[in-house]
């Protein structure tokens, strides 16, 4: 089913990227004009209206953002390779590669350390490893968690789908599509009630638009002026269904704008555009100006879950995923998006701004790769869990009785 867009307002901050066209529409344009191949990372930021806040940042902060994108990227690639080549490796992931600039740009605008009562909180809901790294979790411990180790971030109880770390304000993933949005709005309610200037950010996919929770969270955030930032990562698909099956809007941001919430569409491949939108939203929320909605147009390089279709040593997955059953996304769409890679766009910008040169940029990537490899190595040596510990942490104190033996 093809849907006509019903929205009248023009997307904001739209760049000449393969954006939110319906799949067929996009492919037709790409085929007719060869436009995709002509889009380079360099051109993306050569747009007069980007870099407003970002241009004021210190070099260190900018390099940090580049480093964060690389950490997420290399965590993904290293883990995918582990999954594809190491039969003893048990971890899995909902890969975030391709979307790194979203988590990085948003979290760079947040307060990520300090006492729990002062830091900003991020709800990941789903596909959390990128959000976790951007918010600042300890990567070796996260790797241990993903590999079910007793010394992992969450003691081996969570694994990838439920990562969390309150120490850095990462409330984490709950694995459900929908519920985190109203919950995050509750944290925002608490901030406002106690007179704190903290903000709550919730990340959600295009799949969250259709959930009933979308309405609840946005309506109440608006009514109560809550410091909530809803970051919708529109990677065009939920599992293997294009978002036009679930949403009558071309830009989901239009749906949020209907509540009277300041809503923007950004190029999710460009970390600085994301940062700028997040910074505006955070400033508004801290000043008591209420909620914001950011729709980041982005794309994931791997399939929905795990590494089907991927090849060790290569970025992305192009094969057919049996999970998709009768519906799948075309390889040329994946390849088109990969030409506007968030790593390249960030690096190119920093080089153009003279924050880094190519040599230093490459060195940093080498350093990050090594750091991630060390994290996986450390994780693989961590102890496995003690079976009986499964009875703990049900309530704050004590353990529940075993019942499996009668």
């Amino acid at each position, binding site marked *: 089913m093809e849907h006509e867009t019903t929205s009248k307002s023009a997307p904001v901050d739209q760049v000449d990227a393969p954006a939110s066209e319906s799949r067929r529409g996009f492919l037709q344009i790409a085929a007719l004009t060869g436009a995709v191949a002509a889009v380079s990372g360099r051109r993306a930021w050569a747009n007069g209206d980007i870099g407003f806040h970002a241009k004021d940042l210190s070099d260190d902060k900018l390099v940090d953002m580049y480093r964060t994108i690389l950490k997420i990227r290399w965590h993904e690639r290293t883990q995918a390779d582990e999954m594809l080549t190491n039969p003893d490796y048990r971890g899995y992931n909902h890969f975030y590669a391709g979307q790194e600039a979203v988590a990085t740009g948003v979290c760079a605008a947040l307060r990520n350390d300090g006492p729990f*009562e002062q830091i900003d909180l991020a709800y990941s809901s789903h596909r959390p490893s990128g959000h976790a790294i951007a918010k600042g979790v300890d990567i070796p411990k996260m790797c241990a968690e993903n590999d079910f180790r007793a010394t992992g971030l969450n003691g081996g109880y969570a694994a990838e789908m439920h990562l969390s770390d309150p120490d850095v304000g990462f409330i984490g993933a709950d694995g459900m599509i929908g519920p985190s949005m109203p919950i995050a709005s509750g944290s925002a*309610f608490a*901030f406002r009630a106690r007179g704190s200037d903290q903000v709550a950010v919730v990340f959600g996919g295009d799949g969250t638009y259709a959930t009933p929770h979308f309405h609840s969270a946005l309506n109440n955030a608006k009514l109560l002026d809550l410091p909530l930032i809803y970051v919708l990562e529109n990677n065009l698909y939920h599992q293997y269904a294009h978002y036009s099956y679930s949403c009558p809007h071309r830009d989901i941001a239009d749906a949020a704008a209907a509540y009277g919430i300041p809503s923007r569409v950004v190029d999710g491949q460009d970390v600085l555009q994301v940062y700028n939108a997040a910074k505006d939203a955070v400033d508004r929320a801290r000043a008591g100006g209420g909620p914001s909605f950011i729709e980041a147009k982005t794309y994931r390089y791997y399939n929905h879950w795990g590494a089907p279709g991927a090849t060790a040593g290569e970025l992305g997955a192009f094969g057919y995923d049996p999970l998709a059953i009768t519906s799948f996304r075309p390889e040329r769409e994946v390849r088109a998006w990969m030409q506007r890679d968030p790593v390249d766009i960030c690096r190119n910008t920093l080089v153009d701004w003279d924050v880094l040169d190519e040599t230093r940029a490459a060195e940093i990537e080498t350093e990050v790769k090594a750091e991630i490899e060390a994290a996986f190595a450390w994780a693989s040596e961590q102890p496995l869990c003690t079976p009986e510990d499964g009875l703990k942490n049900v309530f704050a104190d004590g353990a529940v009785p075993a019942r499996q033996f009668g």
Partner: protein
Amino acid sequence: MAQKSWMYSVLEAVQYEMQQDPSMIWIFELTPPVASNPGKPVINLETEFGRKRVTNTGIDENWMASCCLGASLAGSRAATYIPYQGALMPFQVIQNVAGKLRHMTGGRASMPVVWIIEMTGQTPGFAGQHSCYEEDSYYAHVPGVRTVIPSTPYDAKGMMHAALRSPDPVVYLYPAGLRTLTEEVPDEAYEVPLDKAAVRQEGNDLTIVSSGGGMPGVLEAAATLGGEGMSVEVIDLRALKEMDTETLVNSVAKTRHLLTVDQSYYTLGPGAEVIARVAENVEGAKYKRVAFPDAPPPASPEMFTWMRPDAEKIAGAARALV
């Protein structure tokens, strides 16, 4: 110390905790959190603490419950009052998120949240969701959430203090049929534990176990049976999750006869769990359940009052069992 109603006792506890903790919040639906009691000051949480801390929005019980969960995750204690019509609207977020979050974060999520979930007064003449009394079982099956159901104003206040001070999420069931009960309730704060049953009356011939809205009928039946010479031990569960097995088993080990009474539906009502726990631990006892049939409540008072367990039916079942 004064005679106080159930809801006045509860709001007294909430008011005290909100005065102590300026970050605590309360969400309500349409009906403001106000209680009055003869000879006592009116409690109005909305005006006392202001609408930044105490507010209503629309008819969205799932948002109310989720909001409180999120507040608790942000380090603010939070409570809400879900009216009975919406009692199961927030079920999924309590069952699948709140109940699992502490465990699945390896103990890192703390959730000092209390959901007061109203159960109906089982008013004859209403029907469907306006007279049902079934949420006890649904919530009691959820791990990671403490589910309690006080049956007296004294317990209501003490368990509310305990619930608000607990780092665990608490489903606090309020059987609205008890709204007219009054008893002496201290003015100062005190706690009643969230995991202990109460032996309301000791006896040797028969143990009757019930909870919440079932208790007045059970106590009345026990008095009748006592007058007939039967020595009845009456246990008020109070805590559905974690259920106090020890008190149940000790009692039936003595009386050898167990009658459970549920205002909730028969199949998988709390009584099923009570019997199963005892049957695993006591040999040779005799068992019977009194419960609402596995049928929704009809509107007609003639049908409804015949279907609902009451003192007379309970006493009849006790006589048949012993």
